[in-house]
């Protein structure tokens, strides 16, 4: 028996063909099904987070609206635009790989990487702003600022008249998560649209409690950081993939007959874009009218 064992070493193999497949068609189908199954897995992974978001948003809509309004919708919107354009350049990368045009393929990979890096850069600016404003939901992870010596201690105002401390007024000696303003809860109370969970969750002894409101806003920022953080991690993985694609494309691995890795990386890149397309309205846009209409 054994003497027949390695007879297939003289059989012609197409260059990209792995040993376990009998032809390129089988390999392409396998890789494609594998990638789609992986993306289904990713949907379930983010799905758990989206579930947590939806549960807490429906429980504490005003706290989430308050948190949402502190996000920078301009930077978020810019990032959305950047990612959509990067999807276009990614699609063009795949297109030129299929056409066998190595030069344009490399150019569009570089452009895709540029937009991906721009996204991460803008994201880093946003994260830094949160750090400076004292709304990172981990104690000690915010910028520290002592109250100026001899400053008058302000009279304690009820939380719905308080303003969030920003700029020169920012005082945060221990780097805590700080949040003073609960005016949106007051608005909902006055106009009588508090949810059941809010009626229990914002009040102590029938009075609006700024600390309890702050805890709910902190949940928003926790979800914001986990969701955008995991998304950014996926972007970083995408950039690593792009670097590998760039190298292999540079070496001329791809042609009109063999471009599967490019197409699969493209699927991944588009998926990560789509996650952001959901994250942006959920985190940045929902609830803005509560502030801007009143």
């Amino acid at each position, binding site marked *: 028996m054994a003497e027949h064992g390695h007879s297939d070493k003289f059989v012609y193999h197409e260059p990209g063909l792995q040993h376990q497949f009998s032809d390129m068609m089988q390999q392409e189908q*396998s890789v494609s099904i*594998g990638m789609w199954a992986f993306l289904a*897995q990713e949907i379930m992974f983010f799905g758990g987070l989206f579930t947590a978001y939806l549960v807490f948003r429906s429980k504490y809509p005003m706290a989430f609206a308050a948190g949402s309004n502190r996000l920078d919708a301009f930077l978020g919107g810019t990032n959305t635009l950047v990612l959509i354009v990067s999807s276009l350049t990614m699609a063009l990368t795949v297109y030129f790989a299929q056409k066998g045009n190595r030069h344009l393929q490399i150019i569009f990979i570089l452009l895709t990487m540029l937009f991906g890096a721009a996204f991460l850069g803008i994201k880093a600016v946003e994260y830094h702003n949160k750090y400076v404003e004292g709304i990172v939901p981990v104690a000690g992870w915010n910028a520290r600022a002592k109250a100026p010596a001899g400053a008058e201690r302000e009279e304690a105002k009820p939380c719905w008249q308080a303003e969030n401390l920003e700029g020169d007024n920012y005082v945060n000696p221990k780097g805590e998560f700080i949040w003073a303003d609960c005016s949106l809860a007051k608005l909902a109370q006055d106009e009588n649209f508090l949810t059941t969970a809010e009626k229990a969750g914002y009040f102590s002894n029938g009075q609006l409690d700024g600390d309890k409101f702050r805890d709910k806003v902190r949940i928003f920022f926790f979800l914001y950081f986990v969701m955008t953080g995991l998304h950014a991690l996926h972007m970083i993985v995408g950039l690593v993939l792009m670097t590998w694609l760039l190298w292999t494309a540079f070496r001329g691995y791809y042609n009109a007959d063999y471009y599967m890795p490019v197409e699969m990386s493209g699927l991944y890149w588009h998926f990560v874009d789509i996650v952001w397309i959901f994250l942006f309205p959920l985190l940045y846009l929902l609830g803005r009218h509560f502030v801007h209409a009143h």
Partner: protein
Amino acid sequence: MNAQEATAATSYGGGIPRINYLNAKTTLASWLLTKDHKRIAIMYLISVSVFFLIGGTFAATIRLELLTPASDLLETGTYNKVFTEHGIMMIFFFLIPSIPAVLGNFLIPIMIGAKDLALPRINLVSLYIYWIAGALALYGLMVGGVDTGWTFYTPYSTTFSNTYVEIVGIAIFINGFSSILTGLNFIVTIHTMRAPGMTWFRLPLFVWGHYAVSLVMVLGTPVIAITLLLVAIERFARVGIFDPAIGGDPILFQHLFWFYSHPAVYIMVLPGMGVVSELISNFSRKKIFGYEFIAFSSIAIAVFGFLVWGHHLFVSGQSPYAGMVFSFLTMVVAVPSAIKMFNWTATMYKGSIHFDTPMLYGLGFMGLFLIGGLTGLFLGALGLDVHLTDTYFVVAHFHYVMVGGQVVAYLGGLHYWWPKMTGRMYSEFWGKVSAMLVFVGFNLTFFPQFLLGYQGMPRRYAAYPPEFQVLNIFSTAGASVLGIGMLMPVIYFLHSLWWGKEAGDNPWLLPGLEWRTSSPPPTENFLTPPIVTWEPYEFGEGSGLELEAERRREAERAAV
């Protein structure tokens, strides 16, 4: 060369082939960097056995502690850690990978006539992920362990427990990706790697079971991954996603946890059902009854399995209307399981039943899974569950399904395919003895726990009222028998590696594709790529093998 000649050439050849997947290369690197699914399966076999041994040691400790009503062997805090680690080791590091990663990995490509899994490198990556996760979990265990129970219920796990929840949580998070990648690989392989003629309805039911379980692995596991990640981050950041004291929602944790962990119990039984379908049909020498029904009942269990998680929350403050829906759906999921049981029984009817060791395990599975499944209906019933929640009744129920189901099926499958994996036969006598000991020991261990639970003994306590002692002594005695029964295969399997009789290609005289290559198979599985012309479980002429004639010759040889 047509298929029949090809198989005839390789079917009855005795002895061990000069070059096979075990001795093709022998360096350590050739094992650690292999892309061969069979070698990866062997490495999984060794690894899961180690974790089974660790988990088993914890189980023995629990049973010893419960021998007496007072908490005398362990203090209560240590006891909490011991049962937690028993659960974590057994569920995440033994039961979930056991049949898929060992038997599935080894057999799926051979059964469908492929050279390897579709994504061999991913397969190796998943083994390494499993090792990393296992090492991290063991590290967490050495530095102090966890005491939350394997369920990690919040807010205890997020706020109050002073143990190593983050490390072990992250270990399980990492381990999840091993499971996801294995499932993904199986889905792709079953879709694209089938040999010519191997249509979907010619697949062995073992493969159908693995297709169903892969769907659950790919779609369920990411949810527990993100949940445990949230628990770990919440412990670190002190934000109230799950802790109600600062606005979180502990019921949300239970929903997310059981959204995976209920389907996960099907991960822990569907592959076992696949193995048993093979055993029952092959050792009855009869075409399986209702092939399509068994195949689709696996898929149905996988689908319905995603819709019943709420039955773990009947007393947790879930809406009673949701409870009613979940209770109903729980009854529905019993239907496909029952379809399997009836079809196996009908398969054996008028079959030529051979009581070899694997079949003893297969029959043991049917008996134990029947009890496990029926008591599941008790727990799925909305009213009765209030009485039984968190008692030993629950413990007995899920051990009947997981140990009586999956572990017994795993042992049966291991005995059945051992000659294929190693080329050697184990001692049939000791095999039968161990199968009997496992069955008797298992029932003696866990049946008393149904009674204890029904009488109200709660789970997860080191001490109990003295009136429960008699049944606990039965249980501990049974556990000793069970332990011996499960350790015996380790000895005679190892013995067989050196001194076992050479098995030959087809020791059981069966028609499946895996019996048409040499034992152990060559690295590329088949010397000539097979073409399938026969229906599944075809014992007659149609199989292209002269099984009857060979059986007669064997009987004559035995008579001489």
